[in-house]
């Protein structure tokens, strides 16, 4: 596993932790599940899509800083909000335009 793989893996784990926190809002369980189903594959695939273009040191530091940021969240409602934000900011750190999964998501 190279550095880019490891960073994508850490991002996926942070996203899963965010989802675990968000799931405690009973009324939003379905929405949380739908968000994770939609975004998690894209986060996991970031490393694959960067095999020929490894993440820059700045990009790697950005993802780790973002992981640290969401790791501070204790409010499940805020976690729900971040389930939508986190994947796009990770994608930006990987040098994309904030979209995961292609132009259809723009």
């Amino acid at each position, binding site marked *: 596993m190279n550095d880019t793989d490891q960073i994508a893996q850490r991002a996926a784990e942070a996203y899963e932790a965010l989802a675990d926190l968000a799931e405690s809002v009973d009324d939003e369980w*379905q929405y949380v599940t*739908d968000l994770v189903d939609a975004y998690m594959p894209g986060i996991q695939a970031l490393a694959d899509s960067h095999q020929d273009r490894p993440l*820059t040191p700045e990009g790697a530091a950005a993802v780790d*800083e973002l992981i640290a940021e969401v790791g501070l969240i204790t409010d499940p409602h805020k976690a729900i909000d971040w389930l*939508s934000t986190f994947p796009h900011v990770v994608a930006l750190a990987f040098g994309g335009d904030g979209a995961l999964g292609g132009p259809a*998501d723009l």
Partner: protein
Amino acid sequence: MRFQDAARDGRAIVYAGIQADPLVARLAALLVGATVAERWLARAAMNGERTEADVWRRIFPTLFGDDTAAERRDRAEQLLEASLAVANRGEAARSSYRGAVVEELTAQLLAARTGSAAPDGPVRRERRVLFDGVAAEIHPYDVTLESDARPEVYDCKWGARGINADVLNQLDDARAHAAEEDLSLDVALVVFDARRSCEIRLDRSTANRAGTRLVALEDLATLAERRR
């Protein structure tokens, strides 16, 4: 169909104070010309746990890195400063400020399209839409574009989670009542969140939304463009 100012209750008066805070208009003005990446910066920083600017500069290296053009970096710095000023209002006030920013941004983008930001111009705030023989809706629309030829009403949300059946039904009812009067009323939901997240939310809703336009974070600039 006619538009009318909404009566203000105590909560609305408090919220009006937030809407009138110069920070709201300043941040909205910065967001009018922002790129999608800059909008993500604003969304993240306004909703962050930490309010130290360096944290956010590290999270968004493409906006603040040494390779970034000075003009672009300066714009990102202004946006970050204003976004953190919202975050620093405290957890309790943040949500009101964020909602007010989305509304003001919508109003500024529509004003750019119409060429008029005058208080008595076509772009108005907190207005009801009244139809003959129909009870008035409880909640006013956040932003309206009161054109005789093609009026538009907007409900504004900070996040996709704010999309619910009540909001969708109110918008669709207004569109349907206007159609009963042979008028075309454009109804739209502006959400400062990812289009994909909004669509996920909408896909689970059974409310009628076929005639409701979604304007998500990625599409905000379209509000300033002439409608076809």
